[in-house]
C-alpha cells in the first residue's frame, strides 16, 4: 500500500504539467458544480424566503369554521414537542372578518389579534411598523398603510367595525404597518389578543396557531408530526408546501436541470481523467514492467494508478472548492440589483460542497480503474524485449 502510494505520488510529481492539467480539469468541474449548486440553492432560498419567510409555514386550526382552539398555550407546548428542533416562532392568532365603516365608505377587513411579542417571530411587527406605536391597550389597533391611504385614516382616529353577527366596536388607531404585500396592507387590521377575543366573543379561545420551521422544505414532514402529536380529530394542520404547489414544482424543475448540468460536468471530468491516465500507463510502462519483473504483484501495480486517480481527485476537489466559492462570492458581490443588493445572495452549503468533493474524488478514483486494469494486464516481457 505504502509503496504503491509513494510511487503514485512520484509519478504525479515527475510529470507536473500533466498533473496540473488534470487537477485543473477536475477543479473546474467541481467549481462549476459548486457555483451552479450554490447559485440555484441561493436563488431558491431567497425566492422561498420572499414567499413564506414572513408568513406562517404551518397552521393548526379547527376543522369546523367558526370553532375555536381552547387552551392555546397548552396546545403550543404539545405542538413544539412534536419537533422541538425544527418548530420556531409559534403564535396563537384570534381573527375574524369585519366591516370597517367610515362616513364615506365601508370595506371588508380581517382583524387579527395576537400577543405582540409572540407575533414578532413570524411578522416582525416592530420592523414593519412604519408610523406610530403598537396597540397595547384594549381596543387599540394598527392598520396597513395602504388601507389608511385608501380611507384617509390618521393616527389617533377612532374607527368603527361590525362583525358578521352584527356586533359593533370602536377602535383607536395607534399606528400604521407595511407588510410589503399590498393585499395584506389593505385588508389586515392588527391588534392585541384580548381586543380580538372580546370583539369576536371567543372567550379564551383562539382561531388558529401559526408557526415556522427552521428548514422550510421539511414543513410537510413537521406538519405530519404535529398532526400525529396533537392526535385531535377536530383540528387540521396545513403547511405552506401544499398551498404553494406551483412554486414548488418550479423549484424542482430548476433543481433537476442543475442536476443534469452537474452530471454532464462529472462525465466530462471522468472521461478526461481516464484518458490522461490511460496515456500515462503507456508512458510509465517501462517502470511498471520492471516493477513486475522484480516481483510486484498485479493488484499492487494497479493500485499505483488508482492512487493517482484518488490523489488527482483530492487535489482537484480542493482547488475546485476554492474556485467555486470564489466564483459564487464574486457573483453575489458584483452582480447586483439596482439598489446595490446582490441579485442572488452568497450562500455556502458545506453539505453540498462536501458531496461535490466526495463525488469528484470517487469519480476520479473510478476513472483510474480502466488504466489500472490495463496495468494489471501489462506483461513485463513486452517491456524488456522492446528495450
Amino acid at each position: 500500500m505504502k509503496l504503491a502510494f509513494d510511487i503514485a505520488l512520484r509519478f504525479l510529481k515527475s510529470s507536473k504539467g500533466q498533473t496540473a492539467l488534470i487537477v485543473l480539469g477536475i477543479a473546474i468541474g467541481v467549481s462549476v458544480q459548486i457555483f451552479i449548486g450554490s447559485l440555484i440553492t441561493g436563488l431558491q432560498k431567497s425566492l422561498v424566503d420572499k414567499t413564506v419567510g414572513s408568513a406562517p409555514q404551518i397552521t393548526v386550526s379547527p376543522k369546523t369554521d367558526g370553532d375555536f382552539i381552547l387552551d392555546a398555550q397548552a396546545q403550543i407546548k404539545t405542538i413544539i414537542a412534536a419537533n422541538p428542533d425544527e418548530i420556531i416562532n409559534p403564535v396563537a392568532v384570534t381573527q375574524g372578518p369585519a366591516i370597517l365603516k367610515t362616513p364615506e365608505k365601508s370595506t371588508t377587513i380581517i382583524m387579527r389579534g395576537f400577543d405582540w411579542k409572540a407575533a414578532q417571530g413570524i411578522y416582525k411587527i416592530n420592523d414593519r411598523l412604519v408610523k406610530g406605536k403598537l396597540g397595547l391597550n384594549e381596543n387599540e389597533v394598527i392598520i396597513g398603510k395602504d388601507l389608511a391611504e385608501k380611507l384617509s385614516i390618521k393616527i389617533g382616529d377612532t374607527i368603527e367595525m361590525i362583525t358578521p353577527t352584527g356586533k359593533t366596536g370602536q377602535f383607536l388607531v395607534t399606528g400604521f404597518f407595511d407588510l410589503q404585500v399590498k393585499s395584506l396592507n389593505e385588508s389586515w387590521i392588527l391588534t392585541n389578543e384580548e381586543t380580538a377575543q372580546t370583539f369576536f366573543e371567543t372567550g379564551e379561545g383562539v382561531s388558529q396557531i401559526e408557526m415556522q420551521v427552521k428548514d422550510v422544505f421539511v414543513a410537510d414532514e413537521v406538519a405530519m408530526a404535529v398532526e400525529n402529536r396533537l392526535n385531535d380529530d377536530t383540528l387540521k394542520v396545513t403547511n405552506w408546501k401544499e398551498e404553494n404547489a406551483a412554486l414548488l414544482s418550479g423549484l424542482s424543475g430548476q433543481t433537476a436541470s442543475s442536476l443534469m448540468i452537474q452530471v454532464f460536468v462529472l462525465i466530462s471530468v471522468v472521461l478526461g481523467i481516464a484518458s490522461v491516465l490511460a496515456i500515462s500507463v503507456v508512458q510509465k510502462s517501462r517502470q511498471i514492467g520492471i516493477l513486475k519483473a522484480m516481483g510486484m504483484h498485479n493488484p499492487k501495480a494497479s493500485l499505483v494508478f488508482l492512487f493517482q486517480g484518488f490523489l488527482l481527485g483530492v487535489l482537484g476537489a480542493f482547488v475546485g472548492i476554492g474556485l467555486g466559492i470564489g466564483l459564487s462570492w464574486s457573483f453575489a458581490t458584483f452582480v447586483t440589483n439596482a439598489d446595490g443588493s446582490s441579485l442572488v445572495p452568497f450562500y455556502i452549503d458545506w453539505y453540498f460542497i462536501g458531496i461535490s468533493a466526495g463525488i469528484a474524488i470517487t469519480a476520479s478514483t473510478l476513472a483510474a480503474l480502466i488504466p489500472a486494469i490495463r496495468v494489471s494486464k501489462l506483461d513485463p516481457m513486452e517491456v524488456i524485449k522492446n528495450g
Partner: protein
Amino acid sequence: MDNFVVEVKGVSKVYGKTIKTVALHEMNLGFKAGSFNAIIGESGSGKSTLLNIIGTLDRPTKGEVIINGVSTRNMSKGRLGDLRNETLGFVFQFHYLLPEFTALENVLMPYRIANGKADKKSQERAKEILDLVGLEKVENNLATNMSGGQQQRTAIARALMNQPKIILADEPTGNLDSQTTDGIYQLFRKINVELGTTFIIITHDRRVAEKADRIVEILDGRISLDIVK
C-alpha cells in the same frame, strides 16, 4: 547428480502461431550454486529467450524450470513474483531504473516490493551495496542524473538488494565502454566470491566469457558447446 540451483529440463520455446519460430529445442541445462557462468552465441540464437525463461519472466512452450529444487511450472503469477523478488536478481542491457526515484530509492525498490516500508536496516544495507559498486557519492541523484556506467551499476546494486541466490544478466555491458565493462565484470566476480551468488551472464565479449568458470554456447536454440574450467 550435481546439486543445481537452477535447472532447465526439456525446455522448448516456440514463438508465433501461424509462422512458428522455434527459439529453443528441448534444452537441458543445470547451473551449480555459486558458479559463474557465461552464455555466448550469435544474435538470434536464443540466449535471451533462455534467460527470460530461467528468470520466470517467460514461460516455456514445453519442459520446466526448476529453481532451488522447486518446479516453477504450476506456480501462479503472484508466486512467481515472490520467487523473483526473493531469489533472482536481474540486470538487463538497459538499466530500467525508475527515473522518478533516486539511486538509493531504486536500490531499495526490491526490498519495498516485499516489505512496503524501508526500515533503517534495509537503508543501511542499500547504502553498503552502493558503496560496493562505488556509487556512495551519487546515491541521492535521480536515476536520470547519472552516467550510463553509474546507471548500470545502480541496476546491479538493485539486483543485489534482496541478497538473491542467482543473478541473471543479459548483455549487461552492451551499452558501455570497455573500461567500464571491465569494472563491472570485476564487480560481478567480487560479489560471486564474497557472497557466493550464482551468476548467469549473456555476453558477446569473448574476453569476458573466458574469465567465467563455464561457457555455454548456444546455436539455433541448441547447446553447441559447454566448457567447464
